[in-house]
């Protein structure tokens, strides 16, 4: 599978758990919940949970629609949870609304390029292997 698009997402750090629950559904592989484990800061020192991933163009094109329609986002996530994560509780509509209100998106190719576009600074790997 070729992922010919790229998306970088950033949202205020207090929404990290919601982002991870939604990412569990977005990721076609099984490790979506492990996303949003890096943080970046804006010029004012605000802390953001950030995640960048290659994706299919069709997914990237849906993001703006889902961001504007939290109910549609919830429906998509609930359907995926029912199919792939039946033992887990999906996020609520309030969670989706908070996510959509707070999320910042870049479609530049590569996470560093996306964060640069959003004027966010991330500390790159410093010897820690994870």
């Amino acid at each position, binding site marked *: 599978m070729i*992922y010919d698009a790229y998306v970088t997402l950033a949202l205020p750090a207090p929404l990290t758990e919601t982002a991870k629950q939604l990412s569990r559904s977005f990721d076609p592989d099984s490790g979506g919940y492990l996303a949003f484990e890096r943080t970046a800061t804006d010029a004012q020192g605000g802390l953001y949970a950030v995640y960048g991933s290659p994706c299919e163009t069709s997914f990237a094109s849906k993001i703006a629609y889902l961001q504007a329609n939290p109910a549609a986002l919830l429906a998509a996530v609930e359907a995926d949870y029912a199919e792939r994560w039946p033992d887990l509780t999906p996020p609520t509509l309030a969670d989706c609304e908070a996510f959509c209100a707070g999320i910042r998106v870049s479609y530049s190719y590569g996470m560093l390029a996306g964060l640069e576009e959003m004027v966010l600074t991330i500390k790159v790997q410093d010897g820690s292997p*994870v």
Partner: protein
Amino acid sequence: MSLLLRNKSLVRRGLGLLRKYSGTAFYPSTSTCFSDNAGTTPAERDGVVGRINCSAGSALYASQSTTGYKPILRRGAKNLLTYSGDFSNAAWAAGTNITKTDYRTLTSTDPSVNRRTTHNIPGVTAGLTYTFSFYATLLSGSGAGLIGIDFAGSTTTAITVTATRTKFTHTRSCGTATNNYAEIYIPANSAWRVEECQCEVGATASPYVATTTAPASNGIGPWWLDFDGVDDRLELSAVPFQMADDHFVTVGTKNLSSAATSKPAFSAYGTTTRRCGQLSFETATLTATWTDDAGTAGTSPTGSAVTVGTSVVGTARKAGNAKSLRKDGALINTSNTAAGTTTLSTSAAGTDGAVFSNGPIYAIALGKGAITDSELKTVERYIGQLSGVTIT
């Protein structure tokens, strides 16, 4: 380099030695890599790698279940420009008085001076050399223009485009990664057909590969894993050796940045700070790292400088208390202080483990036991062959 052109005897001897030393070899290709961490869907060139299986017959594998943390499988040179053959796309910014007449035609309507069209080069790293190339054909007006790269200011090469389709190149080392544009300057009142635009890391222009929405590799030369240097990593299914074991790690890789302070290609690690057999670039220095049980450094040999952009085969080897760094088949330095003895595990909590986390990684070999110098050099030659590095 195709499989048929490799030294089969060297491959056989290298793999044989790895089996002798409970070893593993990871050589990325569409045969050994999968896009999912379960290993069910073969990876494609320029696609994500969720799992790589051992090429030496062991059950060990390295995997990643989160798509954004997966490296990309590449082969050969990578064209960094998106929509490399399509000026109608917005990735190409038309400057003043430049018309992108169609997907491959640039027309300047300026009455007197050169005008440029530009393309942002993504992911530029200070210290690396980049080459921008394209073919051009003169359609009307003058062929006296420029090809350039803008890193905190432009440098250009004067070119003369004629009615005969000709390839032009411009090479530049990046001092400061600012602006980051590939540039084509068209003279006044002229029209050129420009095709096969490519910007790549390195000092020469490689065979062209067309791109659309994402960078792509041209499929000529060694396979490699393309890590983003931020959070990409493949985690081994088991720790291949313990801190107390004699062991060796041989990696074919390339230093792609003198700016980032630490870039481990491989690390076996425990609880935050313990390390053994870590092979990394610390700015421009190839480094092998072992710590004591408390995670305190200082038990490692002195590193060795590697020019940014140069491929290298590095080895971290522990034999008793002797911990050595080798480069391209030769011993660089040895430290004889005691290292740690703590047992590392592959922990579900992620506190212990072994990872590949920076690249490019062309090939990697891991082994346990008291390998001899001549045997180790054979392994290094084998990894070098897979990495485009000749070790005699």
